[in-house]
C-alpha cells in the first residue's frame, strides 16, 4: 500500500507544470487517472510524442519527456464533445477526491465542468487549477509556458552575469516548481477536507509561486527602496546575500569545463590559501571579506588563472578535502551515470512503458521510512487503461465500452 493509495485524482494535467504534480502523488500510490482527447490524439500536451526518443523509436507513444512526467498514472481517452463522454466524466468525478488541470483559464468551464458544476457532482470535490496568471485578475486570459512564467515573475532577470543580458533558466524551472506548488495545494486541500469535510477550489498562479522565490531581493526594494535592476546588478554567480567571495563558477581544463568555488568566510579563505598554495591567496587586499568584495573582479581573474589548467573534478576534490565548498559543474552524464550519490539513492528508477520498453526516469529526492515512493510503470499510452478504468472502476460492461469506442466517445 502506498502512502496515498486511498486518493483518486481525475487528472487533466499535462506538460510538466501540471503532470509533474500528479507524478509526485502517483509515485506515492495515488490513483491518478489521466484524461486525454482522442480526437487530437492527446496533443494538447505538446510533450506527447516529442523527443527525446529511445534509439530507433519515434512517434506518439515514444516521447521520452511525456513518459518521464507521467509514470505510474492510468490513461483514458474521452471525447468531451459527446454527451456520453460527459456522462463518463461525471461518474469519474463522483468517485474522485480531486480534479486537477493546467489548461488556460476557462477551458474546463467551457466544457461544462467548472468548479460550480463539479461541486454539483460531488459536494466535497477538490479542484486545483494551475496556470501562469491564475484564473482571476487582469491577465486571466493570458497564456504562458515556463519561460514566460519565469520572465514575468522576476526569475529570468535575477539569473545572469554582470553587464550581460539575463541568462534566465535553461529549462522550465517554474514548470518543475509550479508542479511542486500544485502538489502542495492538492495535499493541503485534502488535509483541510479531512479535518472539515469541505472541498474547495485552489487557484494556483505559477507567476505568483515564482515571484515569492526572490524574497530577500523583493524586501530590499519594498523596505530599502533598492531595486535589483541597477548598474552592475544582478550577478547571480556571485553572492550578494549572504556576502561571499570568492564565489563563482570558474573555467577549468578542457572544453567547456567549469568548477564552482565558494568561500563563505575568512576561515574558508584561509583554507583556500592552504589548499592552493597560491601567492594571490596571501595578497593583503584579499585578507578580509570587505577587501575581497571590493576587489572581486581582480580576485575572480586570479582564481581563474589558477583553475584554468586544472581538472574540474580534481579542483573540487582538493577544496572539499580542505573543507572549502566546491563542486564541478557536472554534465548530465557525470551525475546520472558516474555519481555514486545518485545511484546509491536509487534516483533513476527504470520503468516499463508498454511501447518504449524499459526506460530510466527521474525518481524522487526523498525517502520515507515506512511508505516510500515507487516507480515501475511507464506513462500510459493513449487510452491504454480505457477498459480497466471504465470497466473495473466505473462499472461499464464490455459491450458498453465497445459501443463507446465505435461511436468515437473514447
Amino acid at each position, binding site marked *: 500500500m502506498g*502512502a496515498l493509495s486511498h486518493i483518486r485524482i481525475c487528472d487533466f494535467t499535462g506538460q510538466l507544470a501540471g503532470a509533474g504534480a500528479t507524478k509526485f502523488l502517483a509515485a506515492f500510490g495515488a490513483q491518478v487517472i489521466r484524461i486525454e482527447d482522442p480526437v487530437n490524439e492527446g496533443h494538447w500536451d505538446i510533450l506527447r510524442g516529442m523527443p527525446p526518443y529511445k534509439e530507433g523509436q519515434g512517434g506518439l507513444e515514444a516521447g521520452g519527456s511525456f513518459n518521464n512526467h507521467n509514470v505510474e498514472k492510468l490513461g483514458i481517452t474521452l471525447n468531451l464533445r459527446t454527451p456520453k463522454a460527459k456522462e463518463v466524466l461525471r461518474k469519474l468525478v463522483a468517485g474522485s477526491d480531486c480534479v486537477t488541470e493546467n489548461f488556460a483559464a476557462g477551458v474546463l468551464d467551457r466544457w461544462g465542468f467548472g468548479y460550480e458544476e463539479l461541486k454539483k457532482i460531488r459536494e466535497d470535490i477538490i479542484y486545483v487549477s494551475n496556470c501562469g496568471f491564475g484564473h482571476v485578475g487582469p491577465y486571466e486570459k493570458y497564456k504562458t509556458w515556463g519561460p514566460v512564467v519565469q520572465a514575468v515573475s522576476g526569475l529570468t532577470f535575477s539569473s545572469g552575469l554582470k553587464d550581460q543580458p539575463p541568462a534566465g533558466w535553461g529549462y522550465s524551472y517554474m514548470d518543475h516548481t509550479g508542479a511542486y506548488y500544485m502538489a502542495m495545494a492538492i495535499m493541503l486541500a485534502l488535509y483541510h477536507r479531512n479535518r472539515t469535510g469541505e472541498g474547495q477550489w485552489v487557484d494556483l498562479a505559477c507567476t505568483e509561486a515564482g515571484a515569492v522565490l526572490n524574497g*530577500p531581493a523583493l524586501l530590499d526594494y519594498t523596505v*530599502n527602496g533598492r531595486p535589483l535592476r541597477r548598474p552592475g546588478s544582478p550577478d547571480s554567480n556571485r553572492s550578494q546575500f549572504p556576502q561571499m567571495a570568492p564565489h563563482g563558477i570558474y573555467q577549468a581544463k578542457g572544453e567547456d569545463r567549469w568548477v564552482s568555488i565558494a568561500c563563505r568566510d575568512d576561515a574558508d579563505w584561509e583554507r583556500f590559501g592552504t589548499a592552493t598554495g597560491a601567492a594571490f591567496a596571501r595578497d593583503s587586499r584579499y585578507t578580509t571579506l570587505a577587501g575581497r568584495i571590493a576587489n572581486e573582479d581582480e580576485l575572480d581573474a586570479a582564481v581563474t588563472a589558477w583553475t584554468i589548467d586544472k581538472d574540474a573534478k580534481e579542483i573540487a576534490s582538493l577544496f572539499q578535502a580542505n573543507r572549502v565548498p566546491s563542486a564541478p559543474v557536472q554534465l548530465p552524464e557525470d551525475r546520472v551515470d558516474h555519481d555514486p550519490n545518485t545511484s546509491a539513492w536509487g534516483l533513476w528508477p527504470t520503468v516499463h512503458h508498454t511501447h518504449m520498453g524499459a526506460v530510466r526516469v527521474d525518481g524522487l529526492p526523498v525517502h520515507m521510512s515506512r511508505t516510500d515512493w515507487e516507480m515501475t510503470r511507464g506513462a500510459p499510452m493513449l487510452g491504454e487503461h480505457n477498459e480497466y478504468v471504465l470497466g473495473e472502476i466505473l462499472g461499464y460492461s464490455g459491450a458498453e465500452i465497445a459501443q463507446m469506442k465505435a461511436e468515437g466517445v473514447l
Partner: protein
Amino acid sequence: MSGPLTGIKVVEICDEMGEWAGKLFADVGAEVVKIEPPGGVRTRTYGPFLDDEPGPERSLWFWHYNTNKRSVVADLDEAGARAAVKGLMAAADIVIEDQRPGRMAELGLDWADLKALNPRLIYVSITAFGRDMPKNLDEYTDLTLMAGGGPAWSCGYDDHSLPPVRGGGNQGFHTASHYGFMTALVALLERDVSGEGQFIDVNAHASQNVTTEAASYSWLVNQSTVQRQTGRHAGVTPSMPSQIMCGDGRMVNSGLPPRRGDDYRRMLMWLDEIGGREQFPEYPFLEIGAGQERIDLSKIQTDPEVAAIFGAGRECVNYIASKLSAFEFFTGAQERGFQVGIIYSPEEVMEDPHFKARGFPVEVEHPEHGHTFTYPGAPYAFGKSRWAIERRAPLLGEDTKAVLG
C-alpha cells in the same frame, strides 16, 4: 477562516537550507517553533538589512524566511535545553531540521530518539546529500549544490566562453525545502489513515538532479547532452533566440512562436496594424502559415518549408517588438493570444497591475518600527482556507518563555 494546517505543531531546527520549508508550514496555519542558538541562527546575519545596518533583528533575509514562526532560544549543547526541546518534539506533529548528518543523533534528538516517545511524529531531515550517502560533504552552499546537482550546466549564454550560470535567489535551497514540505504533506495524509508517523530523508543534491527538465531525461532516454543557450531551454540541438529587446530597451521572452494557422492570421493583422507589412520580407511565409491548419513541428528538422514558416513567425515577433515598449508588446501580444512574458526585475512584479489586483503584495506589521512593510504574498489562493502572514518574523527568543514556560 483558518489555515489548512491550523492545529499542526512543527518544531524547526533550520538554517538557510530548510527554513523555507518552515515558512511554507507557518504561512498555512501550522504553529512553527524555531529553535535558535543563543545569539540566533546564522541567517540573522544575512543581508540585506533594514537601512543597510546589520543586526539580528534587521535582516530582511530572516524577515522573509521566518514569517509566522515563533522563536525559542535553546542552547542544544546544554542538557537542560536539550531536554526541553525534546519535550517539544515529543508533543509535535512535525520536526524539520537541516543540520549536518550526525548532529541530531549526537544531541539525542534524532528520529531514533523520538519515535518511541511520539509514534505519530513525522520527522523531516534535509541534508545536502541525504543521511547515508557514500560521499557526504558537510561543506556546501547553494552555488555548489546547483553546480554539482545539474542546474548550472543548463543555464547561461550561447557564448560558451562565459561560465554556466547559477540561477539567482538561492533556488537550490528552495528546491530542497519544496521536497521537504511536499513529502511531509504526504506523511500527514498517510497518518490520517494509519495513525503513525515516519522519517523522511530529503537529499538536496538529488533534489537539484530531478529539477533539470530535459538535461536529465535526454541523457536517461538516449544519452544525449543538452547545451546551454541564452534565455531559453538548453537543447541537444540549438534553437533560435527568444529574448528580444523592445523599442524602450527593455526585454521580453517571446515564448512559443506561432504554430497554428490562426496564430499566423492574428500575427499578420498585428503587423498590418503597426504598418509593418512593407518592411517585413518574410511576409509570404506568414501567409503560407496562415493558410495551414497547424505547423508540424516534428518536421522542423527535415522539411525546409516548415522551418521557413516557423522562422518567419519568430522574426515577425521580433519585428513588432522593436516597434513597441516591452509592456506594450507583452500586453499587446497576450491580448492577441500569444505567449509572451515581459522580463521583470523581481521588484517590478510588486508594481504590476495584475499582481496588485490579486492581492499578491501584502502588508506585514512590524510594531517595533511603528509601521508595516510590503512582503510577497501567497503562492496559491485557497477558496476555503487561509494563507496569511499573521505575524512578522520573531525577534530572537521572543517566544522562549511562552513556549517553554
